[in-house]
């Protein structure tokens, strides 16, 4: 087993996430796609740590921080989504244009 298949899988997961961010209309779907992007980064970090720096754990430590920041992002993002939904009764991003001049 070498490093390259893990990087290819992670790149695939990254572009699926970017495709979801670009095309989804529902803002909760966009948040899910962002979680996919975070996971591709985590696979990359753990694979590099495992194959290149065997005895060392810094990549896994950074992965823990990425997971914690993803949790914080999901909490704030979903509370924002619910606040917006209470105001404009829609979760579709093309309706969220109250800040537009």
């Amino acid at each position: 087993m070498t490093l390259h298949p893990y990087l290819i899988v992670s790149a695939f997961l990254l572009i699926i996430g970017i495709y979801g961010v670009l095309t989804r209309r529902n803002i909760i779907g966009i948040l899910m796609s962002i979680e996919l992007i975070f996971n591709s980064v985590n696979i990359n970090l753990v694979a590099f740590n495992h194959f290149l720096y065997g005895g060392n754990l810094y990549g896994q430590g950074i992965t823990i921080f990425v997971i914690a920041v993803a949790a914080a992002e999901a909490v704030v993002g979903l509370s924002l989504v619910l606040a917006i939904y209470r105001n404009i009764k829609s979760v579709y991003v093309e309706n969220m244009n109250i800040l537009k001049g």
Partner: protein
Amino acid sequence: MVTEIIFYSISFLLLLCAIQVVTVRSVFSSALYLAGALSMVAALFVLLGADFLAAVQILLYVGGILVLLVFAVMLSSVQQAKLYAQVNEQWVPSLIVCLGLFLLIGIGLKRVSFVEGTVLHAPTTKGLGTLLLGGMILPFEVVSLILLASLVGAILFSRKT
């Protein structure tokens, strides 16, 4: 050889679930497919020898963030999801952009070669604990501040005005 078979089947399931997450029509099904994808990522962590991270992935992502997402899906509109298209009209240019990006990453990966060190499978929990309270103590404290700020922000945004 067995490792390769397990790796490729896990990757196939992971990419299948991920594609379903971004293409399926109902947002609730999309959340369930996201649970499958996150569990497959935890399986990849097990293959890479990161036992503690696999447990954290299941506990935090599948047990925490995903329940939060399902709550948000159920609190927002469920009826709207059946009626309207879930994908905007720009999906062909987005697909072209994503394939180009994948091509670029693939070319870059083909041209580079890494010097792989010794691969060892050892328990990581003790090492991660000493690392988090030793070499990475500053980011550890900063993450606690970020979690506190997100807690206050969630309460602030979700209260009745």
